Structure formats: C-alpha cells, structure tokens
C-alpha cells in the first residue's frame, strides 16, 4: 500500500503541473491563441488527470474530468468553435477540476452541486440539444473519495490519442443516460482491429503506418502498441516485424470496409476484426508488458470478441459499488481475464510509474523530500559557522597568511562557500509555482466583486529560495484582492472614465539588488487620498494637524485598523487587513509599500530577501556591540571629516557626500545602546541605501570586516526587535544582531512617533 501511496503522491504532484498547464493553455486561448497545439495541450492535461484518477478510483474526479474532456475533444476537432464565452466556461471548469483534485487529495471538499451544474453546462456546450436533466441527478452523488483498489487501466500516459480511450473510462461517464448512450456506441460503432504485420509486409514496401492512416479515414482510431516481442536493440533485426497493434476504431462502416483497408497486405499481416472493445485486461497486459504471464497475442485477441455485453451492462450496476466500497473495480470486473490482473495487482503499481512519472526516463528531474534539503542547508550553515570559527582561532595564533595552514583554510573557505551556493541553488525555485495560482484568484475575486479584471504576469521564472516562495502566496493574494476590490472600478465606472471596462492587474517579479521584488499594479482609480486621510483622522490613527506627503497618505492604508471599504465586502473584509500583511512581510525582513496616481491606478511593491538562510554582511562595532549590516544595502564606507558634517535642527546632522546631503544616523543611539553620540568623526560612516532608494549615513565605531553569516531568525527564537532584522552566530561563537537598515532609517526619520504606527514607510 505504501508503494501505491507513493505513486499517488506523485500523481497529485503531477496533477498540480497538469492543472497549471491546463490553466496556462486556457489563458492563452483567452488571449486569442487558440491554435491546435494549445487546444491539444489543454485536452492532454485534462485527459492525463482523468487517466491517473481512474487508476486510483477517484470516481467524482474522473466523472467530471470526462465531461470536461469530452467538450475539449469536440473543441479540438473543431466540432464547436472556440469563443471567449466558451473559454470563460472552460476556465471555470478548470477551477472545479482543481477542486476535485484537492478533494481527492483530502484537502478540502467539492461543492458537488456546483460541480454538477458545471458538468451540465459543459454538456450543453458539447451538445446544445442535450437536456440538462442528467446533471440534475448528479448532486446525489457522494463526494466521498474512496481509496478503491487501483482500477488498473491502460491509461495512455500522454493523452494524445485522437479519441477517448473508451475501454478505460467507459464505465465512469457522468450519468446513467450518458451511460446508455455510450453503450449504444459500443454496440454499433466500435471495432477492435488487431494488426500483426509480418516481416514480408515491410519487405514488400508496405507500411503499417499507411494501414493505420487508412483506418483512421473510417473514423477515430486509437492504436495500442504491443512491443513485448521487441528484442533488445543489439539483437533487433532491423527488417523484421516485431511490434503488433490493437486498434480501437469507431466507425459507422461495416467490417467489409475495414477489411478493404488490408486488401493489399493480405497474407503479410495477421488481422483480426472484432466488434466492440478489446477486453481491458488484454489491452492492459500488452500495455503494461507484464512479461511472464503475458498471454500469447493469439489468445489475447481471441478473447476480445466475448465480453462486450458484459462490459456494457456491468458499469451501470458497478457504479455504485465503486463509490460505496472499495470493492472490485468495475473496469476489470467484467473482463474474463480479471483474475490475472487482480493477481498482478501488487505488480501493477510497480508498472505504473512508467506512465505516471513525468520526468520520464531521461531522469532530468529528481524529486527529493524538501526536509532532506532543509537539513542539508542547516548542516551547511553550521559548516560555514564552524569554518569561520576555525579561521578565527587560527588567526589568533598569529600564523602567517602565506603558511600552508592559512592557505588551506582559505581554500576551505572557498569550498564552503561554493557548497553553500550550490545547496541554496537546489532550493531556489521560480516564483511560477505561486504565480500560477493567481489567475484563478483574480477570476474569483472579479466575479465576486462584479468587476472585469485581466491578470498579466511577468517574471514568473524569477528564482527565489523556497523558504521565501512559501511566504509569498499570502501577501500576493492580499495585494491582488486589494487591487481588484479597491483598486479597479466597476465596468460602468471605467466606461464613464473612458477606460476599457476590463481592468488590468499586473503581477510582476524581479530581482533588484539582492532581493526579490513583487509588484502588483492595477489601472484603477488610484487611492482616494482625501478619504484615506479623513478616515485615518476619524479613526484616530493620525493627528489631524499632521501634514503628510502623498506617499505617506497612500501608505496609511497599512496602518492597523484601517479599512476604506464603504461596506465590508466578501473579498477584502475577511479580517485580514493590509496591516497584517505588512507585519508578516516585515517579519521576513521584507517591506511593502504602495504608490498611487489618481485615476491611473496603484502599485503595491513588496520586496523580500532572496533567501532567508544566508546573508553577506559587514561586521561593525557599535557601542561595544557587534552588529552585521547587510552588504546589499551598503553603498560605500568612509571616515567623515569634520567639515563634511553639518548640523540640522536641534539634534540632527547631515553629511555632505559629493554634492548631496544625507542624514547622519548614529546606530548606537537609534538602537538605544547609548544615550549620547560620540562625534561622528571618531567613527566610521557607512553610506546605505534603503529599499525605496533613500540614502542615509550610518555611524559605527569601527568596521571588523566583511563576512557571510547564517541568518537565525529572531522572531522564531525570541521576538521581533525594531531595527533588527535577525541574528547570527559569529566565528567566535558570539551572537550578533543583523541590522534592518530600512527600519533604522525610518526610526530616525519618523521623529516623534505616532501612537500606534510601528513603521510608516514613505518614499523620499
């Protein structure tokens, strides 16, 4: 069972990817890119999900996927035209499918009524004449996912067939009515043609491909290839025939027409034409290449004619047992060869990965338990600290830098660093995994708020450490919700303002100075500053006589207890305000800010460190304390001359740096290490640049040097300290605090602190 579970896990991982492909394809179609390849890719995604789900007996999922797939099949064969309306329906269907997958996984539930309604809608698209009645019966279905014994099906692993693989999914169609229809198809139109070419066929310059192509003229075909007789490459006679085919053909034409196709190869090809499906077990056997017990092709195909009636009737009765109990799988049950399959059940999962495993035989991808990587990263972190301590000890002994020992240590340091970089690279992931959840969110929020929104994404491949990725989803979700709910206007308002009724929300990721920056931009009305200001005053968040810049007003929305919505909407009023978002972002050493232009829209900017594990820093001494200043923030360091320092106001002073003045901040004073600052000329000045591009000159007593440090979270181990981003352990084993440069700048800039405002970000 464990093995099966493991395969199941892989299946769900794949489902994630497939769902993303599905959504990506549908979005491409929405953008007008509805060429055959895109539609095929979309179809394949749904088909593959259905295939895998069938294997695990995930009934409701299979049933929904089947209806979905049927419509997509009609779409790709151009039976129905691709329209924006249809794409919108398909997108919603993909959301329902995603819900089914989650439910099957045990995460959440499916609204079966909604699912049934969706299925009914899909059916109407497939066949406008179809009465929606069958779907009405669907809500009765239980949404329970039963861990059924694996219904081993011959699911083709790619879904690129031209037709639904009737034999595997026939019993799982949506309703009894549909079942009956399918049964009708089975009886009348479906043929199984087994083709076993002889070597002479090829020698006479005939071609199986041509035969198959001729067959496909009669109707949709699905060939199943049996290569069990194929010898190893070295022993392969390149001119001998080994591979045989079993072709499922759906045609209105009779057996004669099928035989005609093979007229020219008569004698050079063993042919068997039977009405109905090939028994699942036989096809399976050939598909899975169950080596030893594989029946002789002869017998395999001879049995083909027998069980069709059983197949037709069985599913109707067997449907319920599957849902209620993990009883015999309906697919295999009716087939006469069921016992061998059942007996092979333990073998089946083993055979399965070949079909399920996405990376394929190339093995270009390894799935690794993230915990192992985390552990490795922890260990490497310890190694870095250890190496630093060792270097320091050796230094204390006054060993010459040119000595073998010192040189060996240098090499060790480089190696350690390379190991660390490599290990971190393992954990780096593109933000795509988070971004791809967002189109759905935008659709849902837009639906709920009655707005029209289009999401444009940029920089999905920007890589960032996994630890950061996991924490991105929440803030992005909130920023997007906010952008649509508060930023975008209603379609009517937009029309009145001369805008496209469909608003555009842009979600972008980029690297900027060693951090990842996420931007959420809308083309809505922008922040109504008057209202924001009046609300902030009314709620007592700021004092009425305060004069604020536009940016400062915009950023008031991050204050705790601030909500501008006239009415609490479903979307934004869920009790999580922007202040919570801001706090959680700050806890990660990130910042969030907003800029807005009235009538043109707003932009949220979120920036986070690329990794939460290591940091390059400058080790400095302040009032006897050792601090680390992130190197990414430091522009330069200098020793100030007395004439460069000018007083400003009663306590402040600025430093003249090449034609500009930057505020001089004594770190010791700001962090309350001391109460009076020594003259700045006694210390060292580090010119730093904050997230918003503002500069400041931090005064420290001395610089110890540059070092890579392993970040240890203060929040996790202690609590958040203002002005301090995190802590680290130095080479000598002492703990040093890592400075939060922006917070230090803001602490100083804020002057008389506002009563409830932790940090008010304002751009200069």
């Amino acid at each position, binding site marked *: 069972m464990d093995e099966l579970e493991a395969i199941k896990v892989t299946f769900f991982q794949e489902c994630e990817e497939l769902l993303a492909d599905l959504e990506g394809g549908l979005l491409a179609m929405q953008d007008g890119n509805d060429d055959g390849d895109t539609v095929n890719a979309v179809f394949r995604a749904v088909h593959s999900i259905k295939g895998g789900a069938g294997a695990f007996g995930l009934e409701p999922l299979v049933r929904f996927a089947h209806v979905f797939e049927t419509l997509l099949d009609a779409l790709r064969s151009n039976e129905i035209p691709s329209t924006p309306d249809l794409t919108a329906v398909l997108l919603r269907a993909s959301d329902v499918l995603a819900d089914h997958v989650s439910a099957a996984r045990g995460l959440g539930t499916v609204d079966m009524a909604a699912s049934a309604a969706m299925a009914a809608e899909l059916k109407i698209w497939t066949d406008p004449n179809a009465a929606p009645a069958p779907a009405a019966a669907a809500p009765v279905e239980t949404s329970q996912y039963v861990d059924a014994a694996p219904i081993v099906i011959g699911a*083709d692993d790619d879904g690129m067939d031209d037709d639904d693989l009737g034999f595997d999914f026939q019993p799982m169609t949506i309703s009894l009515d549909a079942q009956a229809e399918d049964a009708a198809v089975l009886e009348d139109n479906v043929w199984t043609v087994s083709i076993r070419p002889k070597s002479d066929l090829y020698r006479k310059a005939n071609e*199986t*491909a041509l035969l198959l192509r001729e067959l496909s003229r009669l109707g949709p075909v699905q*060939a199943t*290839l049996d290569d069990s007789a194929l010898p190893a490459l070295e022993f392969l006679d390149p001119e001998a025939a080994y*591979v045989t085919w079993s072709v499922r053909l759906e045609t209105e034409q009779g057996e004669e027409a099928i035989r005609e196709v093979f007229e020219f190869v008569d004698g050079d090809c063993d042919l068997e034409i039977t009405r109905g499906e090939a028994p699942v077990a036989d096809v399976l056997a050939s598909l899975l290449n169950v080596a030893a017990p594989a029946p002789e092709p002869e017998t395999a195909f001879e049995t083909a004619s027998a069980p069709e009636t059983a197949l037709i009737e069985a599913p109707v009765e067997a449907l319920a047992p599957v849902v209620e109990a993990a009883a015999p799988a309906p697919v295999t049950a009716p087939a006469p060869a069921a016992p061998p399959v059942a007996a092979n059940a333990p073998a089946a999962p083993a055979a399965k990965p070949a079909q399920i495993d996405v990376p394929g*035989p190339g*093995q270009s991808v390894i799935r690794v338990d993230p915990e192992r990587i985390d552990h490795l990263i922890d260990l490497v972190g310890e190694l870095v600290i250890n190496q630093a301590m060792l270097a320091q000890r050796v230094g204390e002994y006054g060993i010459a830098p040119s000595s073998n020992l010192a040189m060996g240590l240098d090499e060790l340091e480089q190696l350690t660093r390379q190991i660390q970089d490599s290990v971190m690279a393992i954990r780096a992931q593109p933000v795509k995994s988070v971004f791809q959840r967002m189109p759905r969110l935008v659709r849902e929020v837009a639906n709920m708020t009655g707005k029209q929104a289009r999401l444009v994404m940029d920089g999905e491949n920007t890589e960032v450490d996994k630890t950061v990725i996991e924490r991105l989803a929440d803030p992005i979700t909130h920023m997007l919700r906010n952008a649509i709910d508060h930023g975008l206007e209603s379609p009517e308002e937009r029309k009145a303002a001369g805008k496209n009724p469909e608003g555009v929300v842009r979600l972008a990721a980029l690297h900027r100075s060693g951090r990842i920056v996420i931007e959420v931009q809308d083309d809505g009305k922008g922040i109504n500053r008057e209202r924001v200001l009046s609300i902030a005053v009314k709620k007592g968040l700021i004092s009425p006589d305060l004069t604020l810049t536009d940016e400062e007003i915009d950023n008031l929305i991050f204050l705790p207890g601030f909500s501008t919505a006239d009415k609490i909407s479903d979307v934004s009023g869920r009790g999580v305000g922007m202040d919570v978002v801001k706090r959680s972002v700050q806890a990660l050493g990130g910042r969030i800010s907003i800029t807005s232009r009235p009538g043109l829209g707003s932009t949220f900017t979120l920036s986070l460190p690329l990794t939460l594990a290591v940091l390059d820093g400058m080790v400095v001494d302040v009032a006897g304390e050792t601090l680390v200043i992130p190197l990414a923030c430091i522009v330069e360091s200098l020793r100030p001359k007395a004439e460069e320092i000018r007083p400003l106001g009663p306590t402040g002073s600025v430093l003249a740096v090449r034609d500009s003045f930057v505020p001089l901040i004594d770190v010791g004073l700001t962090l309350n290490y001391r109460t009076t600052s020594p003259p700045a000329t006694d210390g060292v000045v580090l010119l730093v640049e904050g997230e918003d591009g503002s500069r400041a000159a931090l005064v420290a007593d001395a610089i110890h040097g540059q070092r890579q440090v392993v970040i240890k979270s203060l929040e996790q181990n202690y609590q958040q300290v203002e002005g301090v981003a995190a802590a680290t352990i130095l080479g000598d084993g002492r703990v040093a605090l890592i400075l939060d440069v922006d917070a230090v700048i803001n602490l100083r800039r804020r002057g008389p602190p506002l009563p409830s405002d932790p940090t008010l970000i304002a751009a200069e």
Partner: protein
Amino acid sequence: MSTAIALPETLDLKASAPLKQAFVERRGQNIEVHADQVRRLGGLCLQVLLAARKAWDEDGKPFLITAPSEAFVETIRLFGAEGALLQTDIQGAAS
C-alpha cells in the same frame, strides 16, 4: 558524454538498418535525437526507435527526441507510441 542523431526525412525500410547501427554505436551516451526533418516514419524504424529507447532506459541515460516535426509526432500518435517516444518535454515543445 552526450551525442546526437539527426533523423533523415524518410524513415522507411532502407533507413532502419543504418538507424539501428547509429544507435548501437552511441549506446551508453546521453543522446539527443533530432526529429525535425522527419516526413515519413515507418513501422521498422519505429521498432528501432522503441528498442533504442528501451536500451537507453536500461542504461539510465537520457534519451531525448528534440524538435519533432509535425509528421513525426502525428505518425507516432497514429502508432500509439507516444507514451514511449514523446516525452512530456517534447509534448510541451510541440504544444
């Protein structure tokens, strides 16, 4: 070590023996099979491709079919051999 084979336009009876030979010679290396030129693919060469694929799988070496032509993909599907010969990445490329 990695190597590549460029498949010819026509993969018929005449092409199957050289194709097999080409694969046998490259056994044990990572291989890329360029299928962009293929216009016709017959059953014999399909067998060689299938056998080669198996051999590479056994060796645990990557076997990549790159830039498959439309005709190649279509015929592979017709043969029902997409599972073995059109990996996901190829499918993606074809999409």
